[in-house]
């Protein structure tokens, strides 16, 4: 069965393409990119209505909560939320209860994802058993069963020797380590960025250095071992400077940041709203400006949501007691598209950040619309204006700081493996 996506602008930086083309899909693959309007016999038409046709968006940092906390999210509900948000694939972190630190849990995740038939789900395996930071998890077995990366995300790897060994071990497995960079002693008790707002609100702060000090350590270890290191949820200008400098020397380091660090800053916490609480915390306007520069100049490689669903039980409580994290799968597209609208990054760079680079970092075959590539495609109407409404989320988590935000740009169709998928 053939599918012809027509009437759109193909933006695919993997092949330096940004022009009007029709995309022919056959047997789950991109069969051809055709001049606009060319007839293809036997193909079903899918009209892009003048929108963007891009390689399927990939959110390389999400928490799907299953197994163990299905009341917050399931693999099925999370994968639906992804499709609703225009995301064709997600990488889910290992800090479920119990953790994805063993191959049978990996198998379970993949099985649930297969049954759900929504977005692709790529498991990330734990770095240490039970995420306890003591000894290595069975990394080889995890990767053998389908984990695409290794991470204790949610917690830093406190022990520098364990981090060194994990990096070395991963050299043989050809997967990156995704690094939650945080010095716990420096962030202890903190629930927002340490600065003038935390002082005013009487909340314990998390200094910038709690993140950047660990970024520095892990860059040094990546240099020592030669292993690929990916810094997660970069939130500070200090981290950006370290990553930029390391990249300039050829260290194999990549980095992501999240929509909330770009759209919000610590001033947003003045009303003590738990939906503005996450780790790392919202930083300053200066950090925000530096992150945006880093997205434009190539220092930061990817945008990821750090989708972290919680229920009201964890969130409708005192600010300092509320759980960290916000949902993001259904808002990452329009919130990051604001950077394109403001002219901070080009549409092509945006596609790199949300598709091409995440695929490259995780070693996935998607992230391109080159002929013969797997047919994961997102079609976007960049002009559609809408208001974010948490009550309409497919995710079970309604913990968003963006409820009521007026945004522009929305996915109109998601194609995975050559088939149109609905949330």
């Amino acid at each position: 069965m053939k599918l012809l996506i027509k009437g759109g602008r193909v933006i695919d930086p993997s092949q330096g393409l940004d022009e009007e083309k029709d995309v022919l899909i056959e047997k789950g693959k991109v069969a051809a990119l055709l001049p606009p309007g060319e007839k293809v016999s036997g193909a079903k038409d899918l009209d892009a209505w003048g929108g963007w046709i891009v390689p399927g968006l990939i959110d390389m940092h999400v928490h799907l909560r299953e197994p163990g906390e299905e009341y917050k999210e399931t693999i099925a509900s999370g994968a639906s939320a992804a499709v609703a948000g225009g995301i064709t694939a997600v990488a889910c972190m290992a800090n479920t209860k119990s953790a994805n630190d063993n191959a049978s849990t990996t198998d379970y995740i993949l099985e649930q994802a297969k049954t759900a038939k929504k977005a692709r789900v790529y498991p990330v395996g734990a770095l240490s058993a039970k995420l306890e930071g003591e000894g290595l998890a069975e990394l080889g077995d995890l990767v053998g069963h389908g984990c695409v990366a290794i991470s204790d995300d949610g917690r830093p790897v406190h022990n520098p020797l364990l981090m060194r060994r994990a990096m070395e071990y991963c050299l043989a497995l050809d997967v990156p380590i995704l690094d939650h960079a945080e010095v716990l002693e420096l962030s202890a008790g903190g629930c927002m960025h340490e600065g003038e707002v935390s002082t005013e609100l009487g909340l314990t702060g998390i200094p910038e250095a709690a993140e950047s000090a660990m970024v520095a350590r892990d860059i040094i270890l990546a240099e020592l071992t030669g292993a690929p290191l990916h810094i997660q949820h970069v939130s500070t200008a200090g981290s950006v400077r370290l990553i930029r400098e390391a990249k300039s020397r050829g260290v194999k380091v990549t980095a992501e940041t999240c929509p909330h660090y770009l759209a919000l800053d610590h001033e947003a916490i003045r009303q003590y709203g738990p939906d503005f609480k996450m780790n790392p915390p919202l930083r300053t306007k200066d950090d925000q400006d530096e992150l945006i520069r880093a997205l434009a100049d190539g220092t930061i490689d990817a945008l990821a949501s750090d989708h972290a669903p919680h229920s009201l039980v964890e969130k409708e409580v005192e600010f300092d007691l509320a759980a960290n994290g916000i949902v993001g799968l259904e808002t990452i597209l329009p919130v990051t598209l604001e950077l394109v609208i403001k002219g901070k990054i080009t549409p092509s760079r945006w596609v790199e950040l949300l598709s091409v680079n995440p695929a490259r970092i995780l070693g996935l075959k998607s992230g391109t619309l080159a002929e013969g590539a797997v047919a994961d495609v997102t079609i976007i109407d960049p002009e559609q204006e809408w208001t974010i409404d948490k009550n309409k989320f497919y995710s079970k988590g309604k913990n968003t700081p963006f409820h009521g935000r007026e945004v522009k740009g929305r996915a109109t169709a998601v194609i995975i493996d050559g088939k149109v998928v609905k949330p």
Partner: protein
Amino acid sequence: MALKIKSLLDMDGLDREDITTILDTAESLKGISKRPIKKVPTLRGRTQVNLFFESSTRTKTSFELAGKRLSADVVNFSSSGSSLSKGESLLDTVKNIQAMGPDIMVIRHGSSGAPHMISRMVPTPLINAGDGSHSHPTQALLDMFSVREKIGRLEGLKVVIVGDIANSRVARSNIRGFATMGSEVWVCGPPTLMPPAIEKLGAKKSFDMDEVIKDADIVMMLRVQLERGSGTRFPSLREYSMRYGMNMDRLKSTPPNAVIMHPGPVNRGVELSPDVADGPRSIILDQVENGVAVRMALLYLLCGGANETSD
């Protein structure tokens, strides 16, 4: 005579006019506590619920006496431990109390911002009796009242607050309050107990107590958390006391009319030596006495009493 605010959540919402109204009202109500029959019918039929989620002796007693002297029906609800450990959330607790129809709620909570969260959920007027390290507006108001009573003005005074500024709600509220009233506020303590950008709240900063108290009108000593000693905040209580404690020697270096204050409870011999605490320059017990009057004023002004002065 009514306030612009409906609830007292912190000092941010109080302008000079509102503060003056509160202090003037407290002044007129103070005499009630000196009568043989310490009770007026002003809030008869009104229900005041004191919700204390953090232990407190003087503040709770003070609010209870304030309500009773105005003839309000005062109910105390105390609970220690976080909502999570207790099994019922803070909001559930407050909604249950709300369902019983109180006219005003007084809330103390260990989490900064807890009263703000509650105020979004219930319509009843609230008085914040201390939230985390954030705010303790009734303490600041009684401190300002005590200074005004003692010195006769607030404008132009040099107020030095010494101690654990980082973790002090008393410091934050007093900086705001005294600065609003035109005082020059200084904070002093070791850098490890000084939060970032404290100047933005309206205070100047010093690490040198001897220097900063030389020309002070008011020296307000804060309680030091004993468990913070011999940690990373400061080396020992002994050294803390040497560098930032108020004692007779230091008192002599202050101007002769300078006043010593403390929000209590005092760690005698740590931040304040007993001879200073009990000496003639200390107005610590006046602060406690005035606390009742200031809280009476707030209950009266926020609980509808002010709207019925005509009858």
